[in-house]
């Protein structure tokens, strides 16, 4: 098979996958008797046409950058961390414990502490699957799926039996002290001119962007990053080059878990301001779609996270204003994963054929 030009690989393949996913989504909307054009208009109106809508979109984007980066780091080591959801939930527990039990003098210190707590809990939650992968060869995909369910059970237990304040009915922790409340984007100097009313997106957005830069620097500008990528490309070659397989597996996965855990700063500390059940609400899984769509590059991840932020906020608007259920966004998410992840080869084959036509019409005809 002919190789695609690099720009086509980076830009055209994800774009075409997205177009295919959008086309199938439109068919689905038609099939349930609704108007795809109207749906798109409602989504764009609700998520991109007002500062308020952008506040929601960016709030979701922040979460998805973290989980997308988590999947990305593991992918580069040739590992598929499907447990972002569980790690983000445990990260939420870490963040909640930090916020509830440490008397912080200022929100900025609380943010730092909670970020460390969330990352540590997220990393701790992948530590056992990581060790089992590195030492015993247990498949990381299966163990992290199992740990997602164990996490949600553990969290129900913690919220119902341990952290729930006396006399409360809902399984949730007490509200965090107000000193730990993070400033929303409309409370920041400069940005308050753009966001004139209270929005959901908060300062965590900048941590997410910083994390994207840090992941880029780590993977492409450090010795460790090189070792991770080499290990992911070819384990035997990496071993031959003296790269310690156990060490790289552990480091890559712990980093991945830490990034997923960091997400909790956004939703638990920045938004809910208490820990509730199912706090990650699927963002861990969306990380998979974001990483695939973003071609496992931090820039791509940020852009894909923005796209999914739009999809998520737009999907919520669909549920509010049209007869299309909010679950439409899960369908779109599934389609994006299907086309960008699983049917990658199909898209490439289509493109290669088209490119072949342009390059050498005679040969392409002969091949067909």
């Amino acid at each position, binding site marked *: 098979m002919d190789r695609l030009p690099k720009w086509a690989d980076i830009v055209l393949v994800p774009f075409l996958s997205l177009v295919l996913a959008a086309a199938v989504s439109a068919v689905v909307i038609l099939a*349930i008797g609704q108007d795809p054009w109207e749906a798109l208009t409602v989504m764009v109106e609700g998520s991109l046409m007002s500062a308020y809508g952008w506040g929601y979109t960016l709030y979701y984007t922040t979460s998805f950058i973290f989980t997308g980066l988590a999947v990305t780091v593991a992918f580069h080591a040739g590992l598929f961390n499907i447990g972002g959801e569980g790690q983000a939930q445990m990260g939420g527990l870490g963040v909640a414990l930090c916020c509830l039990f440490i008397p912080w003098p200022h929100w900025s210190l609380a943010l730092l502490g909670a970020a460390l707590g969330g990352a540590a809990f997220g990393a701790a939650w992948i530590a056992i699957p990581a060790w089992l992968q590195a030492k015993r060869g247990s498949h990381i995909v299966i163990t992290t799926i*199992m740990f997602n369910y*164990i996490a949600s059970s553990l969290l129900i237990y913690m919220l119902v039996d341990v952290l729930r304040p006396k006399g409360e009915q809902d399984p949730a922790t007490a509200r965090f002290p107000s000193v730990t409340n993070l400033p929303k984007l409309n409370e920041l100097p400069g940005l308050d001119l753009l966001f004139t009313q209270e929005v959901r997106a908060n300062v965590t957005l900048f941590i997410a962007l910083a994390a994207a830069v840090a992941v880029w620097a780590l993977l492409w500008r450090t010795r460790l990053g090189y070792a991770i990528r080499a290990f992911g490309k070819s384990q035997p070659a990496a071993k031959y080059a003296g790269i310690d397989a156990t060490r790289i597996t552990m480091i890559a996965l712990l980093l991945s878990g830490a990034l997923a855990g960091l997400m909790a700063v956004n939703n638990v500390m920045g938004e809910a301001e208490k820990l509730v059940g199912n706090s990650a609400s699927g963002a861990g899984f969306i990380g998979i779609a974001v990483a695939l769509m973003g071609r496992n590059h931090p820039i791509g991840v940020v852009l894909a996270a923005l796209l999914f932020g739009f999809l998520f906020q737009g999907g919520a608007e669909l549920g509010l204003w049209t007869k299309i259920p909010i*679950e439409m966004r899960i369908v779109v*998410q599934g389609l994006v994963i299907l086309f960008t*992840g699983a049917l990658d080869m*199909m898209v490439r084959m289509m493109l290669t054929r088209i490119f072949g036509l342009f390059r050498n019409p005679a040969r392409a005809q002969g091949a067909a």
Partner: protein
Amino acid sequence: MDYNTLLQILDTAVRFATPLLFACLAGLYSERSGVFDIGLEGKMLIAAMCAGAVAALSGSAWLGLLAGIGGALVFALIHGVTSITFRGNQLISGVALNFLASGLTVLVAQRLFQQGGRTPPISGEARFNPITLPFAEEARQIPLIGPFYAEVISGHAILVYLAFASVALTWWALYRTRFGLRLRAVGENPAAVDTAGISVTRLRFTALLITGVLCGLAGAYMATALQAGFGKEMTAGRGYIALAALIFAKWRPIAAMWACLLFGFFQALALRPDVVEWMVRVKVPVPFLDALPYMLTVFVLAGFVGKAIPPRAGGEPYVKER
């Protein structure tokens, strides 16, 4: 705890084990052929919705069952096209299909019935009702075994008996037929099977179709026998428990049955925390029981209690040498 309570729990365990068993055997065919399938959950869910919807509309549980199998087959075929034809990542394809099922089921059910993504409650002929086995009432007089027969063995929907029959059938197909030998071989060493002149693609597609049928049975059982109609996300992770059971059973049919019964027993126990407390003399949190199947599976995966070795070619698309 008296004998009657135990029988009640065992009865519930059998009912809970049935969808796990169908899904677990479904996974067994797919994974034995060398195709990872973490999309069992999604196939069950789409089957549950199709079965619940068609049963509600037609009033026939059997038509519902056919629709459920049809729905799961479509998803199995998509998985086949992505992972066999286009050699895509099997895990990612499974994840994608799970999301598709999760969203599509609600969309379609909402479109058909406008009840918030549920199907209307079904009853009578639209459900698979319990059947009483012969002599169940008469046998009650026999101490110990009699009540066990009447309570636990008898009085289930026909699909329950079909699930256990499928275990025997799967064992026979896997170890006593030519198809079974080829199926096991293609999951270990597809190149060898190919060299013998047998089509790897065809074998794997056949396996995936069987997976689809069994997932269809699992989903239909959920919507038209265990419960009365489809509800949003009603499979609630059972596809993953089935996957866990499959690993726990080390990809063997008879062991799969015991694993599913054990996990079904845990699910039944989770409904009776009082009994658990009586059994172990300390208060056991219900979430712990919910998490038990997953924890046991991690233990087995870790290789501390006999190593679980998956089919060797699992997860790798087969590329024919040219």
